[in-house]
């Protein structure tokens, strides 16, 4: 029995990665849920929007690196992030003007808008692959670890090490900062309140003199910022590969739906729920259990519930279970 080492192992392999992944999912799910709340459709192009924002950031990062601009121990990508956000805002406002606005004026059914967003997905996917290619791109620099396993062991004298990557730290801090900012905006500012009013009841909001086009425009801008930040953080933490962003769509939607579509608080809770379940179900528990249990009971196998290849299946199972027992999500979502 060695509780301290067991806890450190747990922290190192489960809690820290799941916190980072959960923050990324939460930021992605916030974007999906905002679009659902204001524009009232499920945006399948969200994954590729993230890829686009991250791509611009990667390109600007490379430019900065070639100029010799660095951010001390932090990744240069943080400096490039505002440019990525700006480009993404431009892209989303342009798509809205060219594509979505027509259907909004027509009051088209939500499912038509979903199909339209599929078309946008195709186009964005083509653009991203055309510009940066389909391969893995590395744009991470700066210090790799906040605490590396070795320094931790030397500091504490424990058997197990605890490693926290810089990207994981940045991810969680950025997510907290962004979410706080978003909630302040939605709850305290006039524009934020008008957005919530529009989301709750469109007709009533129109009667009170809220300009719908302005609400929609601000929504797209916020969504662009959220998507780019989520995309860049994911790219820094794992690696930037256009196709993976499309596959993120399922966990992101699962997070948004599990929390209750249209509910920002739910998106965050859903993101962490999905991330923690994915990591715990696919983690091999052998090491932790060996520390916890007396020697005679130590497990032989890996004690892994599912192989890591089935991560997607985990988010899907949670989605189905929540939908069957609580069809509008944990926090009450809305339905079109």
């Amino acid at each position: 029995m060695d509780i301290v080492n067991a806890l450190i192992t747990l922290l190192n392999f489960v809690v820290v990665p799941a916190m980072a992944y959960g923050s990324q999912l939460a930021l992605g799910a916030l974007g999906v849920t905002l679009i659902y709340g204001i524009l009232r459709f499920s945006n399948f192009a969200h994954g590729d929007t993230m890829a686009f924002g991250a791509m611009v950031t990667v390109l600007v990062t490379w430019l900065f690196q070639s100029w010799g601009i660095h951010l001390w121990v932090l990744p240069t990508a943080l400096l490039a992030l505002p440019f990525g956000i700006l480009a993404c805002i431009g892209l989303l406002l342009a798509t809205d003007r060219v594509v979505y606005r027509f259907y909004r004026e027509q009051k088209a059914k939500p499912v038509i808008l979903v199909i339209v967003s599929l078309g946008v997905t195709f186009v964005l996917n083509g653009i991203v692959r055309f510009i940066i290619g389909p391969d893995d791109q590395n744009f991470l620099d700066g210090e790799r670890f906040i605490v590396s396993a070795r320094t931790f062991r030397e500091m504490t004298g424990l058997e197990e090490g605890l490693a926290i990557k810089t990207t994981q730290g940045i991810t969680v801090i950025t997510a907290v900062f962004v979410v706080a900012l978003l909630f302040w905006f939605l709850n305290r500012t006039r524009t934020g309140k008008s957005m919530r009013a529009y989301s709750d009841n469109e007709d009533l909001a129109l009667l009170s003199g809220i300009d719908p086009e302005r609400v929609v425009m601000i929504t797209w801008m916020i969504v662009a910022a959220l998507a780019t930040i989520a995309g860049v953080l994911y790219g820094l933490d794992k690696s930037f590969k256009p196709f993976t962003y499309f596959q993120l769509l399922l966990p992101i939607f699962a997070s948004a739906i599990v929390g209750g579509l249209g509910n920002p608080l739910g998106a965050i809770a859903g993101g962490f729920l999905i991330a923690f379940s994915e990591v715990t179900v696919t983690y091999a528990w052998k090491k932790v259990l060996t520390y916890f249990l007396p020697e005679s009971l130590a497990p032989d196998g890996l004690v892994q519930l599912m192989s890591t290849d089935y991560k997607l299946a985990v988010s899907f199972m949670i989605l189905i279970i929540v939908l069957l027992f609580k069809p509008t999500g944990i926090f009450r979502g809305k339905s079109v």
Partner: protein
Amino acid sequence: MNPVLRNTALFAAMAMLICLVGIFQSWNAALQIVNMGLISAIMALGVNLQWGFAGLFNVGIMGFVALGGLATVLTSMPPVREAWAAGGAGLLGGLLIGLATIVAAVLLVRRMRPGKLRLLALTALLIAGFILYRAVFDPSVDAVEAVNPAIQGYLGGLGLPALLAWPVGGLLAAAVAWVIGKTALGLRSDYLAIATLGIAEIIIAVMKNEDWLARGVKNVVGLPRPVPYEIDLQNDPDFVARWAERGVDAVTASTLYVKLAYAGLFAAVLIVLLILAQRALHSPWGRMMRAIRDNEVAAEAMGKDVTARHLQIFILGSAICGIAGAMMTTLDSGLSPGIYQPLRFTFLVWVMVIVGGSGNNFGAVIGGFLIWFLWVEVEVAGQWIMNLITSGMAEGALKSHLNDSVAHMKFFTMGIVLLLVLRFSPRGLIPER
């Protein structure tokens, strides 16, 4: 213009386009487009049944197509006797235990009163079932995968005729569609979309990782074919002599012959399905489906069981996609789970249905042909245009990057086509009547 005349003109134009490929590229390429066009048309028919008739939004087509492919392996490959002896019983036993656990859990939820006791019993049952399942299943998997892993390492199929795999593909897809439909169809429309998107990814993940089933990413090659092999034709003196009279060499003749044979088989399947779909559309059942699509509340008030009808048509449409998937794998004569990508196998089929005209079976068919034609030819045209653009450029990174990116132009073009059609002609080429 009279619709019949217009539609005939459209199909004639499509045939012309394919003939142009035959004249300017090669007849082999043209027949390749015809074969995949026929398969695409069948997939589009299946999706049109779900979306056009009933308004069900299924974005998991890729999963059903892949299941069809899996069925080809399970039906037509010869069984691997050593593998069956090594772990066949254990595998089946494990799967049965898993199934029994799920059935028991469902029964338990239905029979017991809600409360803490039920939750406790359910959790205990699921954990016990899972441990037992893994205990029986895992050793058998290792045993099976150890049998001659370079070329086998899986259970093999039943060794039945290749053509039988097509209906089996449909049945397999239908069975999975039943499970999904039972759980997800009562929910809202976009939840069905997410559920199908997820299940498709999971089916692919299972096919990639469960090596005992169909060798996973190691791929199964050399599936039995319902048509003769090119090499046999080339060694057949009668065949060579017959084509030599017409001035065609044996290699070209044999490839054309095989492709034509496939085209005949595929066309037969398409025609049968098309007739059935047309009959269904114009039957009272088809009218009811469209009534449900246009106004669920009103249809329900008329006493129609909306959920049951949705389940029915979801299964039918998915089964058609399964048949098409089996046909495609037979044409490729190999199963490689790595090729299944959602943009290619789900969204491209959606583009076919929307561009062709949702709600019209002939629309789905022409959409299947036209979009597949574009999908193939955009790359050819893109290469040509890109060569033109870059011809004046100096050799370098930019030039090679531009030339490499041509392959990705396909997605861009398809997206633009879909958006343009949705905006300016949302009823498609052959609108619903």
